């Protein structure tokens, strides 16, 4: 083989190597992109967890565990069971300056059915003889406003649906609990759309009237009233117990 043939062969090999090199570079770039997506997810999770320091401080959880026993006197009169399907979806986006490009195959979706039990109650801890007016035959009882409490929240784990694209990480337990909290908040925010407070009053009357008739009053002579007849959005924060630990008013500690 002469020198010209060798050069020709060498040129041919060089030409063939160009597409190979290009493929290698593309694969390398794809790899870097995937690594970036994954590392960004981890970074976001860390940022979120550091923002949540008011909830939990690592290492001190045992000390922070709540255990409270409180005496009370509450008449729970109405129970509402509410079902909600909490849904969430997102996708990774490549952000270059002000430009955003959705990255294919990075979407994920979740649907979490959850059941919330709300109970309305009348706090009888403040009830006293001042709450009663009677002439011996007729009786007027004034009760405090009903309150609403979330007594349980239950996630239907059996029917939770999750879809992840293959390069996305799964929804973590921490992410899922954020969604549960938002679902619960959405229910408590819309509580006035239900008539739970009105029903609580009616139900309190139905529970107390038989007891008062046993005391010798005729049913038609018993009147039960409440501090406030109608409720509006401004009353919500006062009437909904979002944090049981701080809302319990104990008459006898």
């Amino acid at each position, binding site marked *: 083989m002469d020198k010209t043939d060798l050069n020709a062969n060498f040129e041919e090999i060089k030409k063939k190597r160009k597409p190979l090199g290009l493929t290698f570079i593309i694969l390398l770039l794809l790899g870097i992109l995937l690594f970036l997506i994954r590392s960004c997810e981890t970074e976001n999770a860390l940022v979120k967890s550091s923002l949540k320091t008011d909830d939990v401080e*690592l290492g001190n959880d045992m000390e922070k565990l709540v255990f409270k026993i*409180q005496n009370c006197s509450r008449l729970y009169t*109405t129970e509402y069971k509410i079902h909600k399907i909490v849904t969430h979806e997102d996708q990774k986006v490549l952000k270059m300056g002000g430009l955003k490009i959705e990255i294919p195959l990075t979407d994920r979706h979740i649907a979490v059915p959850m059941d919330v039990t709300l109970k309305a109650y009348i706090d009888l801890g403040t009830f006293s003889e001042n709450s009663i007016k009677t002439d011996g035959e007729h009786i007027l009882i004034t009760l405090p406003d009903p309150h609403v409490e979330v*007594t*349980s929240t239950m996630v239907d784990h059996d029917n939770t649906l999750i879809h992840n694209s293959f390069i996305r990480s*799964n929804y*973590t*337990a921490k992410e899922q609990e954020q969604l549960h909290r938002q679902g619960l908040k959405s229910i408590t925010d819309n509580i006035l759309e239900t008539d739970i407070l009105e029903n609580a009053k009616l*139900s309190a009357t139905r529970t107390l009237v038989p007891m008062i008739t046993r005391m010798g009053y005729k049913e038609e002579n018993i009147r039960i009233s409440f501090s406030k007849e109608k409720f509006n959005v401004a009353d919500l924060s006062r009437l909904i117990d979002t944090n049981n630990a701080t809302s319990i008013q104990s008459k006898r500690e």
Partner: protein
Amino acid sequence: MNPIQQTNKNSGWKWVLLLILVLIAVVVLWMKSCNGPILDIETSNPENKILISPEEILSIEDIGQWVFLNVESEEIVDTTRRHFFRSDDALSRIYVCNMRFGIDMNEVKGTDWFITSGDTAKLALPAVRLMDEDFINEAKTRTFYEVGDWDSQALKKMYNKARRQMLKRNNTSQNLKIAQENAQHEITRFIQSFGFKEVEISFGMKINNLLPPKNHTHSTGAMEPNQ
């Protein structure tokens, strides 16, 4: 190829190279003018907001639960999954519960549960017990350590474990006793507000005659923990 052609080709490549450099410079300057990082990957829903979905009222029920003791507690539940070739997976969560102890006035039947005689009222009330089967507020659960992927079934198992632990810890005869003592105090106070001087209460049994023994105010209700 003659030298003139060679020179023209080289000069063409130079122009292309210069154009690319100018383009890169323009792109870099444009990106720098924007706030935030030049190149970033984020999610399309950075605040993790849920989508709007309706709420359905499954049931409305009249209840008459008179609650006298409220126990709020948290329970740590953890689980691990062993791997041969890599580090183990682990998940630790704190569950929050609110357990209410009291009497269910809907369990009172007939009319002889409340008997009056002069200024004395006698009440035969149901036994004090835990009011709810579901007492965990799962939306308040906090995960404080998580390594590895955990599916819904693993979370369900942890919920059930937390529930068992809470029942064991809180649904005790001691708590039932405290609840009953408070019930005794609060109901007496409530009835006395109506003008009765003597109030006699029995829990978990019926009064069959009008004048039972004076000291008959102790509970006979079920006091064993509901495991």
